[in-house]
């Protein structure tokens, strides 16, 4: 069963606006990651945040993690048409044989 549940399922915004996507999960985690998937392509890793971190930045990406609420958010600032893609959160329990558990994804459309 899915560990992560993203919200909303679909998001449509204008170029230049910020996009906020949320992920909730059920069990304890070691880290949470966000991936992007362009249509017809494989997933690409965007950012990883560990359970002892609260916020992390990478370029136009900002991710937060609230372990007390078992939730994370991904903010994309000043969105571009090229940000149009599906975004997935994935959780990991950690350890040598740790596996990722993915959510169902959010479809982001950025209108030019």
């Amino acid at each position, binding site marked *: 069963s899915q560990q992560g549940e993203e919200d909303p399922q679909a998001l449509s915004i204008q170029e230049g606006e910020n996009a906020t996507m949320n992920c909730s999960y059920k069990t304890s985690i*070691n880290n949470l*990651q966000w991936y992007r998937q362009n249509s*017809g392509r*494989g*997933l690409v890793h965007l950012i*990883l945040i560990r359970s002892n971190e609260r916020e992390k930045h990478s370029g136009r990406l900002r991710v937060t993690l609230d372990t007390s609420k078992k939730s994370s958010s991904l903010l994309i600032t000043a969105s571009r048409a090229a940000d149009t893609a599906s975004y*997935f959160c994935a959780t990991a329990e950690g350890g040598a044989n740790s596996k990722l*558990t993915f959510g169902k994804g959010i479809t982001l459309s950025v209108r030019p």
Partner: protein
Amino acid sequence: DAGITQSPRHKVTETGTPVTLRCHQTENHRYMYWYRQDPGHGLRLIHYSYGVKDTDKGEVSDGYSVSRSKTEDFLLTLESATSSQTSVYFCAIRVFGREITDTQYFGPGTRLTVL
């Protein structure tokens, strides 16, 4: 793309036939994974490998088997394909840096249609 290729990229087959999908990596990574992606389900783990001849089941392993006889190749076999196995299959590797990490890099995918 972390040197990951998948073959074939597209395949159409008939119910009951065996199918083998190949994942090949060029960078000697220990951990490899097979996922399937279906609308409304996201990515689900089928099998994974943590070394040559070391494999384990994932969330949706029924009807699938895997083999890893050398580091660079991870094969996924559908012994007798069913229409419910129509999906897009992704291979991934796990890359370790200075510390253990769970970050995975994905191949381009194989679109399999079972008629």
